[in-house]
């Protein structure tokens, strides 16, 4: 069972929540797919066993063989190849390439284009106290985290386990990719107009993808009705409220997981999972 943790707005507490959820369950996987800045390791302090290079295919053009017919240039949706027959030059811009392979496919000349592997990130695998840990880390300057995210989901998750997927913020392609195969989507929000606004956006995404959803309100001060009123109106379940407190914030800044700071929350985390598992939400 895969549970994705998303937020829309950044900094609402996806990682803070998901690491504690992973620590609550036995033998669950914590999968950090916030590949542009994975930081779940700060809370889980995993023992890393494997470092795997992640590569994507990019074209390599041989100007000796190339006839400068421009077929690849015209076929590339992302304008990653410029063929200039006037000066017999083929220029490739790796930062625009989406690794689709269409250039190699349409090239009529044997040996003019071949695909080569380019390292675009690293996958770390290991264990933490009561579960297994996977982290994707994209190289700086890479145009998209999508290949790395889909690569981890399709090849590295242990099947038949509970996988807590810590997704990237926002509502764009990497988020969509990280929740695509999930059975449930947990939205972590904060009770501010910004939290509400971005939560609405991610709710739309989840609805379009026909996902079951529930909301966790972080930094809850009890008297803030903005997000709660909206969820009530839309009939969306609140799974958990994490109180706002200086104690929690202090411990957070030291990398101490929430359920260690507030052990009383552990049964509540467990209930969140049971409700999801038993289809109560």
């Amino acid at each position, binding site marked *: 069972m895969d549970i994705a943790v998303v937020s829309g707005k950044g900094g609402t507490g996806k990682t803070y929540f998901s690491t504690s959820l992973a620590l609550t369950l036995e033998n669950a996987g914590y999968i950090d797919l916030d590949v542009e800045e994975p930081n779940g390791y700060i809370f889980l302090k995993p023992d890393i066993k494997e470092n795997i290079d992640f590569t994507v295919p990019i074209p390599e053009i041989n100007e000796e063989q190339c006839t400068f017919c421009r077929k690849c*240039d015209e076929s590339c949706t*992302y*304008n990653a190849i*410029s063929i*200039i027959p*006037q000066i017999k*030059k083929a220029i490739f*811009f790796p930062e625009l390439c989406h690794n689709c392979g269409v250039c190699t496919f349409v090239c009529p000349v044997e040996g003019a284009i071949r695909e080569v592997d380019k390292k675009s990130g690293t996958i770390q695998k290991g264990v933490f106290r009561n579960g297994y840990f996977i982290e994707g880390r994209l190289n700086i300057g890479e145009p998209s985290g999508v290949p790395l995210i889909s690569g981890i989901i399709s090849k590295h998750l242990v099947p038949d386990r509970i996988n807590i997927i810590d997704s990237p913020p926002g509502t764009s392609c990497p988020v969509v990719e990280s929740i695509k195969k999930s059975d449930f989507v947990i939205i972590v929000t904060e009770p501010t107009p910004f939290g509400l606004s971005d939560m609405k956006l991610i709710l739309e995404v989840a609805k379009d993808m026909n996902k079951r959803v529930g909301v966790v309100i972080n930094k809850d001060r009890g008297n803030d009705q903005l997000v709660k009123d909206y969820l009530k109106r839309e009939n969306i379940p609140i799974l958990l409220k994490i109180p706002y407190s200086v104690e929690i914030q202090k411990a957070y800044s030291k990398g101490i997981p929430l359920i260690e700071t507030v052990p009383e929350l552990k049964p509540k985390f467990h209930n969140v999972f049971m409700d999801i598992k038993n289809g109560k939400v």
Partner: protein
Amino acid sequence: MKIFLPVKDDKGIESELDERFARASYFIIYDLEKDQIVKTEKNMFKDGEHGVGLKVAGFAVAENCNLSIGAKPGPKAEEILYHAGVNSYIVNNGIVSDVISKYKKGVLKLK
């Protein structure tokens, strides 16, 4: 000798230079020997998401332009212009007739 000029409007030599190279509205190609505009083209790449500059630079090269006068090309466009031996004079505003006469007087500076 042909000069490539990214411009805002289609008003012949009165056209105003665009602040942007790749996403200018029109391109004017000025032939120095004939001393006139030989082509005005609407920018068909304008609304592309990525890599617009290199398409525009490719267009300038395909039209055998030797020089670009106007907004600064982006790094990718510049790479293509460099390989094709097309120099760019960076001019951020003015109308075509003015910059052409400045070029002829040799008062424009490269880069």
